[in-house]
């Protein structure tokens, strides 16, 4: 496929086609090569987002109203909570992440995606595994190892399935026609190796018992911290590094900083996981290593923050016009906040208060939701119109989605952070009765449920948009700037009878 450009008569090699149109056609072909599989990943991801949201609301309500759905064992809090975590992590976040990763890698490599059947196979397998794993969490025995609750056979299926993603993304990387490797590609390249290594090794160490006792706990947090740091974060950052400059039409502020950021992230994030066990039963050097590495994380975080901020500076008014930019910039800012916060929480003095409290829960959602999920929303708003060749049906619904999720997560974060911090302070004073802490927290737990409902409204708006997009028969107009509308000079023909429109029927 890489020799496509050399085919006689192919627009990219055809001297008769002006360069501007060649770019449009090249991009349209690559988008077309992604359409089926990437849409499959995105659509199924959103189904899991909805399932995970329902589980989240149930778990949240149970925390302040324990009699809610109390008599059914599958819906007991201790089962619903891990089911929520695993559906949003392995269902929504990973599937959406894979979709965005594949599309970004293909676009940046300037090569079409191949092996569609393999990708569909992976998609089906992954969905079945998450479904089976979730049902297992609700109904049968599972080992409560945070982030790794899925039974071994589910984990094995996910691991094997991921090999397909690896094959396809490395294949497109190998066939890249653009020699230069953009910084987003570094992150994506790293992520496809890091995830399976982490996931398979952690499962082997814990569920197959290859490590003993407390070493299983360090394996647990080595995984649970790294899955954020070197699986979700690289995808989120790759999206931010591509979409912020791309939507603005401004090159990234400092490319040098972005490379420094990549390597320091790879080096330090890996070692930070044991700060989750500060004060716990393990050799002091282990948690100290985690604290030191967490401090070093300031380097990549600050480089990313400077870079994204300086790229945006003077252009913040553009957030008004672009849904993608809005979500992505919200995500990028949350990334800075969550990373700085995370580093501080690794300090023993801070950790003494925040450990074992809702403060940590708020922090986790700042990372997985305000950063990663919002970055995925933004990416999806950019790529779906290009994949399907039609524009989003409603600007109002997009705004509903943004404002509900943005205010929702803000409320979620601020409520639980405040309540969680006080919880930790009170817990560290043995004169405060434990029940007094429980009573104090209840209003904050209600605020979380309320925030969750706001986020749910946003998710439903998003699902409706995607559903309309997917089912829409007629193109509702050209996707924003699909042929650059900002450039009035060049018009139709070369693009309009090209693939995105003509082949839509058969693939859907």
């Amino acid at each position, binding site marked *: 496929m890489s020799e496509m450009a050399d085919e006689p008569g192919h627009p990219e090699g055809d001297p008769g086609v002006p360069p501007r149109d060649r770019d449009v056609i090249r991009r349209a072909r690559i988008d077309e090569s992604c359409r089926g599989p990437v849409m499959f990943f995105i659509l199924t991801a959103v189904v899991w987002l909805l399932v995970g949201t329902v589980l989240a609301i149930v778990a949240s309500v149970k925390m302040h109203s324990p009699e809610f759905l109390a008599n059914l064992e599958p819906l007991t809090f201790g089962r619903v909570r891990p089911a929520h975590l695993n559906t949003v992590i392995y269902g929504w976040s990973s599937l959406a992440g894979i979709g965005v990763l594949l599309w970004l890698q293909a676009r940046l490599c300037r090569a079409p995606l191949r092996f569609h059947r393999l990708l569909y196979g992976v998609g089906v397998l992954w969905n079945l595994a998450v479904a089976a794993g979730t049902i297992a969490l609700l109904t049968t025995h599972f080992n409560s190892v945070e982030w790794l609750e899925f039974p071994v056979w589910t984990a094995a299926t996910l691991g094997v399935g991921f090999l397909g993603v690896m094959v396809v993304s490395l294949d497109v990387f190998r066939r890249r026609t653009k020699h230069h490797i953009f910084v987003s590609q570094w992150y994506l390249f790293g992520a496809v190796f890091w995830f399976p290594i982490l996931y398979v090794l952690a499962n082997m160490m814990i569920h197959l018992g290859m490590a003993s006792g407390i070493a299983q706990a360090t394996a647990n947090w080595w995984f649970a911290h790294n899955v954020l740091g070197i699986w979700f974060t690289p995808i989120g950052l790759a999206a931010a590094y591509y979409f912020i400059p*791309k939507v603005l039409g401004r090159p990234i502020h*400092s490319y040098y900083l972005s490379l420094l950021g990549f390597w320091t992230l790879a080096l330090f994030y890996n070692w930070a996981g044991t700060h989750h066990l500060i004060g716990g039963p393990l*050799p002091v050097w282990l948690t100290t290593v985690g604290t030191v590495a967490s401090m070093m994380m300031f380097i990549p975080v600050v480089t990313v923050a400077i870079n994204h901020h300086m790229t945006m500076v003077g252009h913040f008014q553009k957030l008004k016009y672009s849904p993608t930019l809005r979500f992505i910039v919200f995500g990028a800012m949350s990334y800075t906040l969550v990373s700085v916060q995370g580093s501080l929480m690794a300090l023993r003095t801070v950790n003494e208060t925040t450990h074992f409290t809702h403060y940590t829960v708020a922090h986790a959602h700042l990372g997985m939701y305000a950063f990663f999920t919002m970055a995925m929303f933004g990416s999806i708003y950019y790529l779906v119109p290009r994949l399907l060749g039609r524009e989003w049906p409603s600007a109002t619904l997009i705004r509903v989605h943004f404002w509900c999720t943005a205010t929702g997560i803000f409320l979620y974060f601020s409520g639980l952070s405040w309540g969680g911090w006080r919880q930790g302070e009170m817990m560290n004073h043995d004169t405060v009765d434990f029940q007094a802490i429980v009573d104090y927290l209840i209003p904050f737990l209600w605020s979380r449920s309320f925030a969750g409902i706001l986020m749910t409204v946003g998710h439903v708006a998003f699902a409706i948009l995607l559903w309309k997009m997917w089912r829409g028969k007629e193109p509702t107009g050209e996707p924003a700037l699909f042929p650059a509308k900002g450039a009035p000079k060049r018009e139709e023909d070369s693009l309009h009878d090209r693939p995105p429109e003509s082949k839509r029927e058969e693939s859907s």
Partner: protein
Amino acid sequence: MNLIYLLIWGTWVIFGISVIWALSWAVSRGHMTNVEQSGQSIFDDEEPIGEMTDYFPGEGPDGYLNAQEGTDE
């Protein structure tokens, strides 16, 4: 116990050396020249620097695109 500290520090030293080696390798192979230009690789003739590539559906900056919409069909 001492062996553990040796291992940890040893790992870091080996790591440091390989990082320095990789950096000098990159510099010697010219990977560090023209770094900043690399940031422009995501733009092309069709989507050049200076043009936004995403808007709310049916909307554009300053209502310019709204005016265009009508004439498209």
